[in-house]
């Protein structure tokens, strides 16, 4: 069991989301940055979907009431009993140990994963927190969380190779698939969207990020559509011409025209962009987006196997580019 002894920002339990209930109006929710969250889980030997702690900007302080293996994902200072330790590595904590996590030096969302995952009472098949409907809760000082059973021996001391640590900048190019309501925009509007720089405003949260920048012109069809569904990463443009990127806690349906949808591989980049950060959009087609996703998943499978000790990983440089290669261990 662990106890939160200091919580300074929105801190919740999340997994990869609540699926199958959007037709009832229940948002998917789940982690904002699936890359960091999944890597944190891999570091402690968990599967992708194990419930973990997500925090915003500033991490909590946690006391361990029993032995555990944990990993912190984020560009952040971490201390165990006052002694600095590394994020992106798994560590052993014993009963009474205190884990302090500082403020993220870049990015917005950080994660703490525990071997065995956090035990929770699943609601509609998921541990993801959705505060607006009181599914789960915002964690507070004094909350105690049970951890799932896991063999801890051999789980500590796993290190994510430097080259694989996600780096989130405050200026990103975001790949999007245009549509599905492109006919609600003029050619000039689409051109504006693809050639301008947009700034993430402070009016952004787990539901969506509101952007500031040049107005996107609607066609004679206007900003409103017959209400339809909202996929992850959908970019809605209301009548004021300012785009909103819909994220984990987005409502399931909405009535604004969507100019594009962020490619899944780039959703974490959006989520990790702070208020004031700048985004530019680049159109790609569905085939390209799906190919990028397949490549990422191939890499993820290998990272998992690397951390589970099934393969070795090497960084090589060829033609001026760095690659990770994974080599099967001899049995």
């Amino acid at each position, binding site marked *: 069991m662990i106890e939160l002894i200091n919580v300074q920002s929105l801190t919740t339990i999340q997994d990869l989301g609540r*699926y*199958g*209930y*959007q*037709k*009832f*109006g*229940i*948002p998917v929710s789940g982690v904002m940055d699936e890359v960091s969250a999944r890597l944190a889980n891999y570091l402690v030997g968990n599967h992708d979907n194990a419930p973990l702690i997500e925090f915003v900007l500033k991490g909590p302080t946690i006391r361990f009431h029993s032995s555990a293996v944990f990993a912190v994902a984020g560009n952040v200072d971490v201390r165990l009993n006052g002694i600095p330790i590394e994020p992106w590595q798994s560590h052993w904590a014993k009963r009474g140990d205190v884990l302090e996590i500082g403020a993220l030096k870049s990015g917005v969302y950080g994660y703490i994963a525990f071997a065995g995952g956090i035990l929770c009472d699943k*609601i*509609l098949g998921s541990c993801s927190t959705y505060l*607006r*409907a*009181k*599914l789960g809760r915002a964690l507070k000082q004094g909350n105690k969380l049970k951890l799932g059973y896991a063999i801890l021996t051999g789980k500590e001391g796993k290190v994510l190779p430097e080259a694989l640590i996600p780096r989130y900048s405050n200026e990103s190019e975001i790949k999007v*698939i245009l*549509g*599905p309501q492109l006919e609600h925009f003029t050619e000039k509007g689409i051109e504006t969207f693809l050639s301008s720089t947009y700034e993430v405003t402070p009016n952004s949260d787990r539901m969506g990020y509101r952007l500031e920048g040049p107005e996107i012109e609607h066609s004679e069809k206007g900003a409103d559509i*017959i*209400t*339809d*569904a909202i*996929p*992850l*990463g*959908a970019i809605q443009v209301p009548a004021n011409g300012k785009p909103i990127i819909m994220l984990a806690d987005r*409502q*399931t*349906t*909405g009535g604004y025209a*969507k100019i594009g*949808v*962020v*490619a*899944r591989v780039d959703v974490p980049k959006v989520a990790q962009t702070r208020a004031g950060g700048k985004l530019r959009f680049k159109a790609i087609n*569905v*085939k390209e*987006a*799906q190919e990028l*996703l*397949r490549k990422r*998943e191939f890499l993820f499978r290998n990272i998992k196997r690397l951390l589970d000790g099934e393969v070795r990983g090497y960084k090589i440089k060829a033609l001026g580019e760095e690659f990770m290669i994974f080599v099967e261990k001899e049995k």
Partner: protein
Amino acid sequence: MQFKPAGDSALLIIFGDRIDEGINKKVHAVANAIEKASPDWLIEVVPTYTSIYVYYNPLKLSYQEVLDAIKPFLSAEPKEEKPRIVEIPTVYGGEFGPDIEFVAQHNGLTTDDVIEIHSKPLYRVYMLGFTPGFAYLGGMDERIATPRLEKPRLKVPAGSVGIAGKQTGIYPIESPGGWRLIGRTPLRLFTPEKDPPTLLQPGDYVKFIPISEEEFWEIHKREWGEQK
């Protein structure tokens, strides 16, 4: 029918370009057929007024392959079943519906007229969405149409019945909101412990039944226990 990608993990099927009962019935027939078959590449389907979002796993099937895979389901036709009518007991006016006088004045009616006009029709549930358990209802009489509040309320209690433009609806959970509130039902529209978690289902018909405050609290206790 029209097909479009909506990002790299969703296929959008469009059945029409207006809110229409026939189109919507077809939407739900096809959505149910896909869901029933539950192929391994399917994440979930979200049927709306005139379209279906088919969320799929692009690691299993590409967009082109999903287009082919859904073809057999597109011929599904609505079943000629008697629709379910869900009665929604509602207290109109007073603290439960603080905007009912405004709605009446705006339309040159008395509050009794508003109650009568609002509780008369059978409203079709076209779709659920927006927030858990929120039903998009069709069929409101335009004589009680009223614009939204200029400044939305920060807190609207669960069960509040409101009007926004030509639409009427029920807030399933406490939330901020800009609809003109004319009443409140003691029924729970969203119960996460239940499966399905929502009282209303697409294709249902809703009938508002005016009740007294005493009846409200009686039903409220049964539905919510001691929760307020």
